[in-house]
C-alpha cells in the first residue's frame, strides 16, 4: 500500500508539475495537445474498461463521446449555458440514453454485445447527420471557449479566453478530470459494487442465483461507463471549438477498446497506460510517413502474439516469481 501511495504521488507530481515545467523548458507546446488528448481518451477508455469489468465488450464508447460533445455544443451555442454547466449535463445525458439503450442490449453477451455497440457508434454518426439540431454534416463550429467558473464569488477557474496559454489550461483540466475519473474507477472496483461486478464477469447465472441483481448492476455500470464517454466528448468539443458527425467514428470506438486491451484488462490503470502508449506510439510513428499505419498495426499484431494479456501483465509475471 505504501509503495502504491508513492507511485500515485509520483504520477501526480509528473502530471501536474513535471510536464508543464519540461514543456516550458523545451518549448514543445504541441505536446500539450497530445497529452490533453491522451488524458481525455483515457477517461473514455476508463468507461470501456468498466464494461469489460462486467464481462461485456464495449465498442460503442465513440457514440457516447459524440453524444456528449453534441449535448455540450448545442447547450452552449443554442441555449447559452456555460461550459462548466454543460460538462456534467453531457455526462448525465449520455448516462440517461445509455440506460434506455442498455436495458435491451445488455441482455446480449460476448460477440453480440460487441457487435451491437459497434453498430450503435455508426448509427449515432448517422443520427448526427440527420437530426436538425446538430446542423448535419456542417457540424457546429465557433463554440466559445470555457468561461470562468466561480463559486460564492471566488473565481476557481479563470476565463479561458483571457488566459495567456489556454493549452496549459486545457491540459490541466483534462489531467484533473482524468485523475478524478480514475479515482472514481478505483473506488468502484474496490467497493462492494466492484465485487459484484467481478461476480458478473465470472458467471452471471451463478451471481443471479445467489441474489445479485444482475440486470440493475449491468445497467448501472453501463451508465457510469457512458458518463465517462460523454464527459470526454464534451471536453474535446471545448478544445477543438467545433464538432462534426465524423468527430467520433467507428475507428475511435475500436480504438477505445484497443486502449483497454493493450494496457491490460485486469488492471485499473491499464486503460490509462494503453491510451498513453498507443496514442504516443502513433504520434512517434509519424516519422514513418505513409507507412505509419502499416508499422502501427504490425506492432499491434506483434504485441498480441507476444503479450496477449496486456502490457501490465509484464509486471504480473515478475510478481509471481518472487
Amino acid at each position, binding site marked *: 500500500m505504501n509503495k502504491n501511495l508513492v507511485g500515485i504521488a509520483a504520477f501526480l507530481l509528473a502530471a501536474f508539475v513535471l510536464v508543464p515545467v519540461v514543456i516550458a523548458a523545451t518549448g514543445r507546446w504541441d505536446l500539450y495537445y497530445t497529452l490533453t488528448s491522451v488524458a481525455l481518451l483515457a477517461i473514455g477508455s476508463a468507461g470501456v474498461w468498466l464494461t469489460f469489468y462486467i464481462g461485456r465488450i464495449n465498442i460503442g464508447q465513440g457514440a457516447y463521446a459524440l453524444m456528449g460533445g453534441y449535448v455540450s455544443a448545442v447547450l452552449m451555442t443554442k441555449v447559452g449555458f456555460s461550459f462548466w454547466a454543460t460538462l456534467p449535463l453531457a455526462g448525465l445525458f449520455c448516462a440517461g440514453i445509455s440506460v434506455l*439503450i442498455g436495458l435491451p442490449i445488455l*441482455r446480449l453477451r460476448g460477440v453480440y454485445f460487441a457487435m451491437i455497440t*459497434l453498430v450503435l457508434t*455508426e448509427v449515432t454518426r448517422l443520427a448526427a447527420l440527420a437530426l436538425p439540431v446538430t446542423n448535419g454534416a456542417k457540424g457546429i463550429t465557433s463554440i466559445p471557449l470555457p468561461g470562468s467558473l466561480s463559486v460564492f464569488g471566488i473565481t476557481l477557474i479563470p476565463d479561458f479566453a483571457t488566459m495567456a496559454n489556454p493549452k496549459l489550461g486545457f491540459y490541466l483540466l483534462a489531467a484533473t478530470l482524468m485523475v478524478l475519473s480514475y479515482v472514481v474507477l478505483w473506488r468502484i472496483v474496490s467497493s462492494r459494487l466492484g465485487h459484484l461486478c467481478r461476480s458478473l464477469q465470472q458467471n452471471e447465472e451463478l451471481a443471479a442465483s445467489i441474489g445479485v441483481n444482475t440486470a440493475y448492476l449491468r445497467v448501472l455500470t453501463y451508465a457510469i461507463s457512458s458518463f465517462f464517454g460523454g464527459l470526454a466528448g464534451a471536453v474535446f468539443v471545448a478544445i477543438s471549438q467545433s464538432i462534426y458527425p465524423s468527430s467520433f467514428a*467507428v475507428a475511435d470506438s475500436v480504438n477505445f477498446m484497443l486502449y483497454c486491451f493493450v494496457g491490460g484488462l485486469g488492471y485499473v490503470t491499464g486503460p490509462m497506460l494503453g491510451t498513453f502508449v498507443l496514442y504516443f506510439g502513433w504520434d512517434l510513428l509519424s516519422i514513418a510517413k505513409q507507412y505509419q499505419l502499416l508499422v502501427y498495426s504490425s506492432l*499491434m499484431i506483434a504485441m498480441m*502474439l507476444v503479450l*496477449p*494479456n496486456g502490457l501490465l501483465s509484464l509486471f504480473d509475471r515478475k510478481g509471481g516469481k518472487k
Partner: protein
Amino acid sequence: MEQILANGLYLGAQYALIALGLTLIFSLMNVLNFAHGQMYVFGGFVTYTVVAQWGLPFIVGLVASAVILAVMGALIEKFLFRPVIRKSKRDESTMLLAAGIAFFLDAVILLLFGEKQRGVPKIVDGVFNWDMRLIMPYDRILIGVLAIALIVGFIALMQYTKAGRAMRALAQDRMAAQLMGVDVDRYSMIGFALGALLAGLVGGLLVTITGINLGMGGPTSVKAFMMIMIGGAGVISGAIAGGFILGMMESIGLTVLAAYGDITYLAIFASLMVFLAFRPQGLMGKPWG
C-alpha cells in the same frame, strides 16, 4: 412497389454473401472478424486491378479476387489467430487481433491501391424496363443472379461435401469433432479461407456497380454485423435471412422515409433494438443445429 422489392432482393443477395463469410468464421473459431469489410474492399481492388488496369475479362478478376483472398485468409488463420487463441487467457483477445488486422489491411490497401474511388466499366450494357414499373440495369441483374448462385453453391458445399460436413461438425462441437477424427486445424484454416474468399467475391462483384474505395471497409463490417445479429450469429440460414431482411429494409426505408431525410439506418437500428429485446439470439440463433 415492384421496384422496391427488386432493389431489396438485389441488395439482399450481396449482403447475404458478405454475412455468410462472417458467420462462417464466427461459427468455426468464435472469432468476430473485424477485418471482414477490409477483406471485401481488398477483393474489390484486386478485381479492379485485373479488369480495369490489365484489361483482362471480368471473370478472371473475380477468380483472382477469390484466390488471393482465400490465400490471405488461410495465412491469417495459421500464423495469427491460431497462436493467439492458444495463448491468451480471454476469448476477447482475438478481437484486438482482428482489429489490428483490419488496420493492417487498411494500410496495405492504401499503399497498394491508393485512396481514390475506383470502378470498372460496365460488364453488360442496357437497362431492363418492364412498363416503367420495374427498371433495372442488366449488369445489376447479372450481379444479383451471380450472388444468388454463389449462395446456393456455398450451401451445397456445406451440405454435400466432406469438407462441408467437417466444418459443420466443427461448428457444433469442436472437441467432439476432434475426437471423431476431424483435422481441426486444417478445417479451421479452410473455413477461414472460405470466409475470406466470400468477402473477396462480393468485393469483386460490387466493384462493377458501386465501385470501391478505402473508406468502405468499416461501414461494410458494421452492416455485416447487423445482418448476423438479425439472423443469429453462426447460423448459415440466419446469415442469409439477415442479409435479405436488411437489404429489403434498406430498400423500403430509402423509398418510404426519403421525405424525412436520411434516417433509414436510424429506423433500422431502433427496430433492431426492439427486436433484440425480445429475441437476443436473433431469428435462428443457435449454434448450427
